[in-house]
Structure formats: C-alpha cells, structure tokens
C-alpha cells in the first residue's frame, strides 16, 4: 500500500485498483458477518478454495469474505458475481455442487435459492427477493461487496473520494452541506448533526475531540456492529470529514467489548488508513492532521450516554454527570467534544460525495436519508434492513419481514430499545420517522425493531425491559436505581398473579417520578416501555390483575400445562421432564402432576404430537 500525499496520488491508485476489477469479473462472496459466522460460514472458505482449485478455476474466480448482507436468518449466505445470485443456508457439503454446477457449469443450484415461506416461490437474484427489494441500501450498500480487511476494495468502490472533496471544499462548506442535508443523529435522540458540529466547532479551545459511539447497547440492535464489521473504512472516512469540519485533531472510537470481531476489523482498518497516510499528519497534503484511538467498553449500557462514555474513556466508572456543561463545551479530558454514533458517521461520506440535495431527496422532509433497522423477533425474515425514512411499519414488518411465522397474529413492534415503546397493530401504518415515533410513545432509538406476536406477553416484555434497566442503571439516582427496582417488583407481582388495581396506581406514580427526577436519559426514558404498555395494552395487564390470567400464556404463575388425548405415549416428555412430574406408560396417555410441575415448558417443546396444552 503506497502512502498518499495528495488527492492525485489517491486517484491514480484508485484507477489502478479499479482497472483490475472489471464489473463483470467473476467472484464468490461468502458473508463473514457475525450471524453467518455463527452458522459456520468460516468453514466454507477453505472448501471453496479447494474446490475452485480442483476445478481449475483458481485465479479466474475471486473468492472473497465480505461483511454482513443483513439476511442473517438465512445464513450462511453466498453470493455469485457478476450474476448477483444468492445461495442461502450453504453448508460445506453444498460447496462442491455450487462450484461444479454454477461456477463451472453455469447452472443454477435451485435447492439453495431463497424460497418465500408463504408462496414457495424461488428467487435467483438477491435484489429480487422481497427482503431486499423494498430496501434502499446506502450505508449497507457496499457491505456485501467488499472485504472489510481490504482498503483496496474500499478505494475501488470510491472510498475516501468524499474526504478529498471535503478538503477541497473547506470546513465551512462541509459543515453547511451536512446542515443542509438534514442529517439527524442515528444513535437515538435524532439531534441535528450539522448543528451539533457547529456548536463544537464554535466552542473555544483548539484541542477538539470527536468520538464515534459504537457502544451499541440496545438489546436487539446490531446495525452499528454490522457497519463496522462490514465496512469499517466508511466510518473512518465519516469521522475524518467530521473532524475536518469541526477542527478536531483527535478521535476516539468507543466500542462494545461484546463485539470482538468489530474491534478487530476496525483496528485493522485504522492501521491500514495510517499506513496509507489517511490518518496522521498532513492527510492527502491538506495540512490537516487527525488520528484516533479505539477504546473498548467494559459492558455497561449506560456508557452509551455521552457523559458516561466520556467518564469511561477517562478510566472511571461510567456514571453520567449533569449537563451543562455539554460535551461540546467541556467533554473528554476537558476538551470540546463531539459525539456521533457509527451509522451517523457512515452517512457523512455519502452526503459529501453526492451532495446534500441528493441526500435530502431520500426520506421525509424532517427525517432525511435512510435508517438501518435490525428486524428481529417473531418475524419471518429477520436481519438488517435499510429503508428510507418515512416508510410505514407495515411495509417493514410485512413486505420486507415477510410477516409473522407460523400463521400467528401480529401483536406489537418494539422500537427504540429500552428507551422506546411497543406499538400495537393499530399503529402499523404510521410513517417511521424520528418525530412520529416519539409522538406515538415509542422512539427511533438506534434502530432495534422487535416484532412480537400473540404468544408474546406484554407484561412479560415490560418486565423484561425493567429488569434490563434496573441492572444497567448506574445506581447514582435514587429515583432510577430504586424506582426501577420497585417497578420491576410491581410488574413481577402482576406477572405472578399478586397484582391489584392498587399495584397499577403505584406503577403509574413511580413511573412519573422516575421519569421526572432522574439525572440522565437512561432514567428519564426508562419508563417508556412501561408507559406504552399501559397505554396500548392495558387490557392485557388487567387480565393479569383482575382475572389472574395471562392471555399470551407466558407468565408461569398463571398458566398450567396439561396433556390432551393427542398423546401417543411416546414417553419423550416424561424422559425429559426435569421434575419427573410426568407419569405414564408406553403408548398410554401421559399425565402431568401439577404439584411437581415447574412450568419449564420442556414437555411442550419436545412433544411431536402437539399434545401438551397450555391454559
């Protein structure tokens, strides 16, 4: 890798790299995202290598490990270029067939194509699959095309062109462009990014700092992880442009320790950028100097809060402090600090490269651009989706997500993580943008979207979030620490059939105080899941309280397991029951001893006859 000392250097090298990569070049791309890796995608690479060699295709077809394609449910994913053919759930034993049939023979391996679970229709090309068809991929666009470890790959796709352009524009114009683009922070609250930069730029003090918030703490969200793992240079480029506009010479990336692969890939990208002169002194001959360090989080959700993150980088307990002073005035090491999250930074190169007007055309007037969501839970096509802002919830859940599995009924979608809320079916047609979600009692958050069906109990979900938050509260404020503890306890009472209308009164009273009197956003938004549940699913709570009944059949204390006459006496449930609560002889109807039953649900899971009944 040469060291670029000017834009000309960079462009001539880019030319050279791109020349070796004709668009019709043949390639096999194996997804190496965390999801596909979990399904064993790493094992595919050596098999492909061997098979390609055997078929004398080595050197003729490039083999590439890429970032996450988003369709994690169907992993491991293999993409064949230039056709754009997608094979799903590929196992090592499938590889010889792919090489023989497709790569050598030019025939499609039908059985590995994606098939719509409802219509049964098979799709050959990735872009035709409903999951991808309704998406508009910007930040994730290059994830499936490039090898995250290769700076060449990024450069070939136009990487760092926006940086060179930014240098030519000058910091004021870059700032204007970002302001004009209407970009809002993708980390949660949706503050105007350009405005934020402007405040930091205007703060007195030459030694400014920018931070990339990669502490993606919301459970059920993995957008930032996939962006860093799949396209780390796009984040670096965004940070470089931001640093240039703000006038910062130091950067930090604060990344979750739960993401080892992302830490590793980002570290490599930083090293490569440094080697190429894209980080350090006098970048591309512009006179601008910038370098950054990676800080690993210690496993604390609250460190996603700006002041807590700063404390953590400074080596202290991640306890938020009162603002003002804001980080832009006095942040990390007392210096003016600007913090944006991964996805926000990754949007910046697009804005500079294509211009604010182009960017503004995507999305809605007040929520411009695209947003990545992690579409998970009780939905057919789980994975990462990137859509223009303003698209409806229904389109995301049903058109892209393919609806609810097992013919069950949609119940709610939870957005915004622990600070967000659950929206019921009646809200499926609202546009997904920053302001509408807040108005409806949920939140964009960082982009977690958890779909729930009729077998999800909303009391259980509210209790789940309270449990999460009381665990993640830093413990500073009485209202948050003890208030959330008490709220969790009250919801436990409801779930275990000890609740009364008085319990609900206490819940409402506590929720009000926790929201009004906690210091940071963790506390003040912690009751959002509770409030949205009270608002939209009150009937379900009342069923627990008045009738001692859990309609979704989840709350253990309110349900019983029995075996009905579908039982063929296979004895599997009796064998697997940890309490030996099931009696019965072979080929005879089995019976559950209710006194011994601990409602672990294993019998239900193992029964092949659908003979276990929950009431």
């Amino acid at each position, binding site marked *: 890798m040469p060291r670029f000392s000017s834009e000309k250097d960079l462009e001539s090298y880019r030319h050279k790299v791109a020349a070796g990569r004709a668009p019709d070049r043949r390639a096999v791309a194996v997804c190496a995202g965390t999801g596909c890796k979990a399904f064993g995608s790493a094992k595919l690479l050596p098999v492909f290598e061997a098979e390609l060699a055997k078929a004398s295709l080595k050197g003729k077809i490039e083999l590439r490990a890429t970032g996450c394609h988003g369709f994690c*449910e169907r992993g491991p994913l293999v993409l064949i270029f230039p056709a754009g053919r997608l094979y799903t759930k590929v196992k090592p034993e499938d590889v010889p067939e792919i090489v023989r049939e497709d790569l050598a023979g030019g025939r499609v391996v039908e059985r590995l194509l994606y098939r719509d679970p409802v219509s049964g229709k098979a799709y050959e090309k990735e872009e035709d699959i409903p999951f991808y068809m309704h998406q508009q991929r910007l930040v994730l666009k290059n994830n499936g095309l490039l090898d995250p470890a290769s700076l060449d790959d990024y450069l070939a796709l136009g990487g760092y062109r926006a940086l060179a352009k930014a240098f030519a524009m000058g910091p004021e114009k870059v700032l204007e462009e970002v302001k004009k683009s209407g970009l809002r922070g993708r980390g949660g609250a949706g503050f105007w990014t350009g405005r934020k930069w402007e405040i930091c730029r205007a703060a007195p003090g030459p030694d400014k700092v920018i931070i990339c918030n990669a502490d*993606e703490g*919301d*459970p059920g969200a993995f957008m930032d992880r996939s962006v860093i793992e799949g396209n780390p240079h796009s984040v670096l480029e965004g940070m470089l442009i931001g640093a240039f506009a703000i006038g910062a010479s130091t950067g930090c990336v604060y990344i979750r320790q739960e993401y080892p692969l992302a830490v590793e890939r980002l570290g490599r990208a930083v090293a490569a950028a440094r080697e190429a002169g894209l980080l350090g002194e006098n970048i591309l001959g512009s006179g601008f100097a910038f370098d950054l360090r990676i*800080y690993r989080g210690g496993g604390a959700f609250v460190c996603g809060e700006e002041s807590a993150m700063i404390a953590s980088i400074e080596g202290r307990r991640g306890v938020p402090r009162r603002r003002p002073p804001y980080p832009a005035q006095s942040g990390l090491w007392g210096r003016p600090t600007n913090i944006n999250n991964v996805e926000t930074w990754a949007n910046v190169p697009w804005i500079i490269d294509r211009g604010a007007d182009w960017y503004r055309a995507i999305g809605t007037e007040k929520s411009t651009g695209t947003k990545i969501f992690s579409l998970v*839970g009780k939905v057919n096509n789980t994975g990462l989706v990137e859509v223009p802002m303003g698209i409806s919830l229904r389109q995301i859940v049903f058109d892209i997500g393919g609806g609810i599995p097992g013919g069950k009924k949609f119940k709610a979608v939870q957005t915004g993580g622990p600070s967000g809320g659950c929206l019921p079916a009646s809200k499926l047609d609202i546009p997904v943008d920053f302001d509408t979600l807040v108005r409806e009692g949920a939140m964009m958050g960082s982009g977690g979207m958890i779909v729930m069906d009729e077998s999800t109990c909303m009391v259980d*979900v509210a209790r789940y979030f309270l449990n999460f938050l009381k665990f993640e509260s830093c413990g500073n404020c009485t209202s948050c620490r003890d208030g959330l503890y008490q709220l969790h306890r009250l919801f436990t009472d409801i779930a275990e059939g000890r609740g009364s209308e008085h319990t609900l009164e206490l819940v409402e009273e506590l929720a009000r105080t926790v929201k009004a009197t906690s210091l940071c956003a963790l506390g003040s938004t912690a009751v959002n899941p509770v409030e949205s549940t009270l608002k939209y699913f009150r009937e379900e709570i009342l069923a627990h309280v008045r009738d001692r009944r859990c309609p979704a059949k989840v709350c253990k204390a309110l349900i019983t397991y029995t075996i009905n006459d579908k039982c063929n006496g296979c004895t599997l449930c009796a064998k697997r029951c940890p309490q030996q609560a099931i009696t019965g002889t072979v080929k005879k109807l089995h019976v559950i001893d209710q006194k011994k039953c601990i409602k672990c649900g294993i019998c239900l899971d193992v029964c092949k006859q659908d003979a276990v009944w929950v009431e």
Partner: protein
Amino acid sequence: MTPAAAPAVDTAKVKEILSRHPAGDAGALVNVLHDLQAEFRYLPEEALKLAAEHLQISQAQVFGVATFYEGFHLKPRGKHVCTVCMGTACHVRGAPKLLDQLERDLKVRAGGTTPDLSVTLETVNCVGACALGPLLIVDGEYHGNMTTGRLPKLVDSVLKEGKS
C-alpha cells in the same frame, strides 16, 4: 465439593502487562483491566492491587471501576463459559427458558461457576446476533436458534470435555 482455591497469580506477567501502560496514567484503567482479563480470564485481586500501584490510584478506585462494568470478572471463571444471550429478540424467542434449564442442569445460578471450576454460566444483554435468537455462546462459539431440546446434548459435550 469446595470451590478450588484461586490459582496463584504470575506477578511477573502482571507487571509485564502493566508496563505497556504509562505509570501514573489513571485514565488507562479500563484498558489495563481489559488487558489483565485477556491474560487471566478474570481479574485477580493481586493483579488489581498491582494495577493500582502502577497507575498511582487507590485500590478502592480500581475496585469501584472493575465492579461497575459487567464485562469484568473478579472471580476465577470455569474452564468453559456458557453464555445465554438475554437480548430482547432472544427473550421473546425463549431465552429465559434456556437459562432456567441451564441453571437446573448445571446446578449454578447465572453468574456462577460450578464448584469444580469446569463451567461458568453467564448472561449477556445482547451480542448483536439477534437474527439467530435464542442464542447460546459456548466458549466464544455461537449456537443460534437454540432449543430446550437441543440444549442437553450441547451441555453434555461441554461437561464431558471439561472432565477429560
């Protein structure tokens, strides 16, 4: 069975790790803890005391920080680590059932280690592999779409290996 005594800590190794960070730099604390844990798989008391000395801060400060973050462990962990992801997506797809079952089968509570130090059972609040939920991580390896039916085999294989 009584818990095995924590193994003696290689102080030379601790000092070597500490020497990678400038003495007296209190701001390096979280990074120091990461490095120490990468070596010892937990944070031995002796190592924390040496870290306090090296960074010129009090033991109480080091202890306060080490206990704040969920990712740091102050007790020796088992040879194998079973982690149940408790993210929202995993939760709605049945993670609590898996945890209950593991607690029963391994006879330890979440966060605990079997007395013979063979397995530690942990939970994590989300590892961002939500599409695979419910997710069980055994020694860093992800097992997606886990069920109560498939779980016992997996645990058995881990335990057997632990005894060999």
